[in-house]
Every structure is written in structure tokens, then in C-alpha cells.
């Protein structure tokens, strides 16, 4: 090896440095709705984490004497049939919703991305087996599939997560597969192979980071629809078992008293809407901010 480094010929000065992070911030925080979504999500996280402290009453044990009360100073959102405080149940419902949303996205995202990456990278028979299996799963509408799985496994938060995971894996696998196939054809992957990298290294170090921005956007947008799906399952009675607090189940419990106690259905319904809206807004913001066409702009 030659140690004393002398330059062959000096080339003109470096172009001005553009911070990726600064550009990301500028685009991301520019939109009011994205900010609004972020604030909503922040509040929700806060509420979910400190549910124990924030809830004025025990959400699971009611006082039958206070059944179906209208909103008052004592019970801000009134009480349900069993006399449980609606606000407390709403607060604990946040925990359920976020738990289901995040755990499902993490498990489905991980499994789906690995499957898509492997299928896309190796192609051929491997890809055929994996992707045809995904197509078969995709043949069922997501909610129907989740319903079947939840019906077979029974209710409970764990089974809801499993059901939604199985139902959403194909989406991630598909997107990841397509991204991998397009990234794989780039010259730098060939160059990387020519430099002696193993398949594993190329997949994890070179293809995955290039496929990440669209996946982040997908995951964020999926969070909203997962929470919606969980609410739907709970509404249909296959989700979270009583007395567990789930927004979907609360909407269902409340709708029989729609005329007398509309708050019982509207409050959790509004909460569902707000979360989904917030996740979608943040997802949109991320999509714009991670747009590769903006790379290098100020």
C-alpha cells in the first residue's frame, strides 16, 4: 500500500452542502394539516400512556345506579348502560386502539417486508411460491379475512392483532417485492456484488434503505386503516372482549341509545375518525417530505 497521499489533479470545489434533514423538516412542517395530525397523535400517545392517571373513573367497573346518565360535571361524557364512565372508557380505548395499530403494523410490516425482499431479490421459484401465497391471501377482502381468523381464534386483543397481521401482510409483501425488484436492477447493486458483498449484505444494507421511504409512508397510512379495522371488528363483536374498552365496541354499545344518549356512540366514533384522519395526514406529509425527487433541493 502506498502511504503518502498525493493528489493526481485537484478538481473544482465541492457544491454547497444540503442537509437532508433540513429539507425534510421544511417540507414536512410546511402544511397545517400535517401539524394538526401530529398534535392529535401526540395527544393520543400522551393519553394512552397516562390513561391510568387521566381517567377519572375505573373504566371496567360501573355503578348500575348511574346507568345511562347524560353528560354532567361528574361524568363529562355521561355513562353507559352499566353505569361506567364514558370518558374513562374512551381514554382506555385509546390505549387499545394504539396498541392494536402499532403491534399489528410492526409484526405485519416485518414479516411482509422480509417476504417481499426475499421474493424480489431471488426471483424465480422463490418469488413464485411467496408471491402466489400472498396473492391467495389478498384474494380475500382484508376485513373478511380478519373476521374469519378472529372468529376461529376467538376474541381478545391478541387474536385481533394476529388476525389483522395475517390480513395485512400481503400488502407489505407486494410493495416490498416491487420495490426490491426495481432497486435490484440498479447498477450499484451489480457494482456491490462486484465488490464481493454477500446476498444478505446487499439485501439489508443496500436494497432495504432504498426501499424504506415508500415503506414508511405505507406503514403510517396503514396505521389509520388498522385502527379502523380494529374498530370494525370490535363493533361486530369479534374484537376486544368485554369489559375491555375498545372504541368500536363502544360505538356498538351506544347505538341502541342513539336517540336518548347520542354521546355514547358519537364520542368514540369521533375519536376513531380523528385518529384515522391524523395518521393519514401525517402519512401524506411523510410521503411528500420523503419524495426522492426533492432530494438535493434546499
Amino acid at each position, binding site marked *: 500500500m502506498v502511504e503518502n497521499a498525493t493528489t493526481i489533479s485537484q478538481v473544482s470545489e*465541492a457544491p454547497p452542502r444540503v442537509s437532508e434533514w433540513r429539507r425534510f423538516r421544511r417540507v414536512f412542517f410546511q402544511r397545517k394539516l400535517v401539524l394538526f395530525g401530529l398534535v392529535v397523535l401526540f395527544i393520543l400517545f400522551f393519553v394512552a400512556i397516562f390513561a391510568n392517571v387521566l381517567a377519572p373513573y375505573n373504566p371496567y367497573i360501573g355503578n348500575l345506579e348511574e346507568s345511562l346518565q347524560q353528560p354532567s360535571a361528574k361524568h363529562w361524557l355521561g355513562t353507559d348502560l352499566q353505569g361506567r364512565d364514558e370518558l374513562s372508557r374512551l381514554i382506555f380505548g385509546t390505549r387499545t386502539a394504539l396498541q392494536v395499530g402499532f403491534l399489528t403494523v410492526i409484526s405485519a410490516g416485518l414479516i411482509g417486508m422480509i417476504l417481499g425482499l426475499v421474493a424480489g431479490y431471488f426471483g424465480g421459484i422463490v418469488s413464485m411460491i411467496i408471491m402466489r401465497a400472498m396473492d391467495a391471501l389478498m384474494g380475500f377482502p382484508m376485513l373478511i379475512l380478519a373476521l374469519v381468523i378472529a372468529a376461529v381464534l376467538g376474541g381478545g386483543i391478541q387474536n385481533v392483532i394476529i388476525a389483522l397481521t395475517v390480513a395485512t401482510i400481503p400488502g407489505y409483501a407486494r410493495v416490498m417485492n416491487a420495490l426490491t425488484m426495481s432497486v435490484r436492477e440498479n447498477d450499484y447493486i451489480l457494482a456491490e456484488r462486484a465488490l464481493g458483498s454477500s446476498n444478505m449484505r446487499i439485501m439489508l444494507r443496500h436494497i432495504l434503505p432504498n426501499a*424504506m421511504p415508500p415503506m414508511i409512508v405505507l406503514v403510517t397510512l396503514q396505521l389509520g386503516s388498522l385502527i379502523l379495522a380494529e374498530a370494525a371488528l370490535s363493533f361486530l363483536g369479534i374484537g376486544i372482549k368485554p369489559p375491555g374498552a375498545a372504541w368500536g365496541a363502544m360505538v356498538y354499545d351506544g347505538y341502541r341509545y342513539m336517540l336518548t344518549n347520542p354521546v355514547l356512540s358519537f364520542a368514540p366514533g369521533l375519536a376513531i375518525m380523528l385518529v384515522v384522519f391524523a395518521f393519514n395526514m401525517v402519512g401524506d406529509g411523510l410521503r411528500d417530505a420523503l419524495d426522492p425527487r426533492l432530494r438535493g433541493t434546499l
Partner: protein
Amino acid sequence: MGRLLEVKNLKTQFKTEGGLVKAVDDVSYYIDEQEIVGVVGESGCGKSVSQLSVMRLINSPGKIVGGQIIFEGQDLLKYEANGPEMRSIRGAKIAMIFQEPMTSLNPVLTIGRQLTEMLELHLGMRRNEARKRAAELLSLVGIPSAESRLDDYPHQFSGGMRQRVMIAMGLSCNPKMLIADEPTTALDVTTQAQLLELMKAMVERFRSSLVIVTHNLGVVARYAQRIYIMYAGRIVESGYCKDIFRRPRHPYTIGLLKCVPRLDEEEGRKLVPIKGLPPNLINMPPTCAFLPRCPYAVEQCRKEPWPELRLVGNQQYIRCYVNTEERIQ
């Protein structure tokens, strides 16, 4: 100087829907240590495929169906294409630089990360050590303020600069041989010259061999010691660079040289293009593949199969029946 690489009767084929494409058909050549060799031919003549075969980077539907690739006494074809032996040769002993500098670097990793990756992988360097070495390499290939530019992304470099980075990456593990696959084709002419000078200087410094794959005779004329001219998957002429430029013997080489403009010639000389197109590599005729375009063809060419390489001068071989020197006069 010892023999570094010897390729014997290499055959690489691609199975396509249209039929079998014999991209490289019975090609033999050698590279000595610290030698600069040019591989010249037009698009689709098998020059890139032959080099990728040496690296064992031929992907399905392509397949190496025969021959030997002996590198430092070991037949590379005996190894698994993606096995640990090949991986420890690629990048560490044989490195390759590709045509498109704009797309040959991973856009989401910094230059520094991509450079140090190789050093950590092949030389087992620690991160700090590798980073120091990477900065050294960058300044060696003429990138100013190398230390700070390690943290830049590929899009912050121009095409010429990226190719410099590629050269630094290629040489980072001090390989025995560097294969440059059309290294300057995508760059403008002034940058081309700079980069070729740089490559020559670098391989001399690192005591590596250099294989320049190009369609541009002008590129190899100045730098290569020996050249191989390929046509339709075969080598049609080989020899020392100066001999071939002074006295080209194969009709194809003669044609190639006639369509290169020269400064030292009388005014008014017209460039003579080679008429026709290269043959389809599917269903090649048994006769000489250049026959349809050959101005010197004789009866024998039409009747007998494509001949083997024959010696016509000082280490100069051609794959042709015609004694072109007589015919030209």
C-alpha cells in the same frame, strides 16, 4: 512478470425465447501482472459478458457453459458463483468499475460508508482505521477536501467525480486486477482523458493489472500494452497495441481503424464506415461472422468454417483466411 489471469475457451450463453445466444464463444486470453490490456469491440460483441464471466457475475438466464478461468493458479469456475471463495476474490483481488458513474453508487449511503464497507469487509479494518484509509484513497484519486466529502451523498458529486470515487473503491483493497467496463463512455471528452490518466497512474502505483473494456480504439491506443479485438462473441485479432495500430491484419480491425478520425493524416480523407450491422448472435452461421460486411472476402471464406486464430506476426493473431496485407496492396 507472471501470468495473472488465463481464460481458456470460455463459453457464456444466454437462453432466450428467440433461441440460444452465444454471447461469448470459445474465447481465450491472458493478462499478465501489472499489464494494461484493452478489450475492444462494438456493442453486443461479448466484451462485457466475458469480463462479467471472469467475475462470475453472470445471472440467469445467462450461464457459463465451458472453459476455464485460471486466476493465480486457481480455476474460478470450480467455485460456487456466490460462494465465500468468489466473494473473497471479488473486490479484494479482482475489482470492477462500471460504465455509468451516475448509477453505480448507492444513493442512500454516504461515499464514506460505501468506501469503508469494502475495507471492513475484505481487510477487516476497524471503522476509524477504514475511514482514515478512505479519506486517503479519495485524495489519491484527486478529490479535494477528501476528509469532509466522505460524509457526502453520491448526488452531491458530478459524473467525473463519481467515477473517481468508483476508481477509489475499486482500488481500495489493493486488487491484483482492475476491470474497467467502458469507464469513460458516459463522461465528456476532457474528463475522459483525465480519468484515463488517473487510472493508469493508479494501477501503476498499486501494481495492479488493468483491463479496459471499450468500443473506443482511441481510449486504448495510448494506454494499453496489448489489445484484443472482439467480434460476435469471439476474439478476431490480438497482439501488441503498437503492432495492431501500425499494421492491422483482420478486416474488422482495419475497418475499425478506418472510421477513427486522425489528426496526422492528409486533409480530405473521408472516414469509411463499416457497412452493415453485426450479426444476430442467435443462429450464427458456421462461416466467419464478419463475412457479410467484409470487403476482402475470398471464396474460401464462404465455403469453410470460421478459422481458428493464427499467428501472423510478432505475437499478433487473427481469425481470418485472408492475407490482408497483400490484398490491400
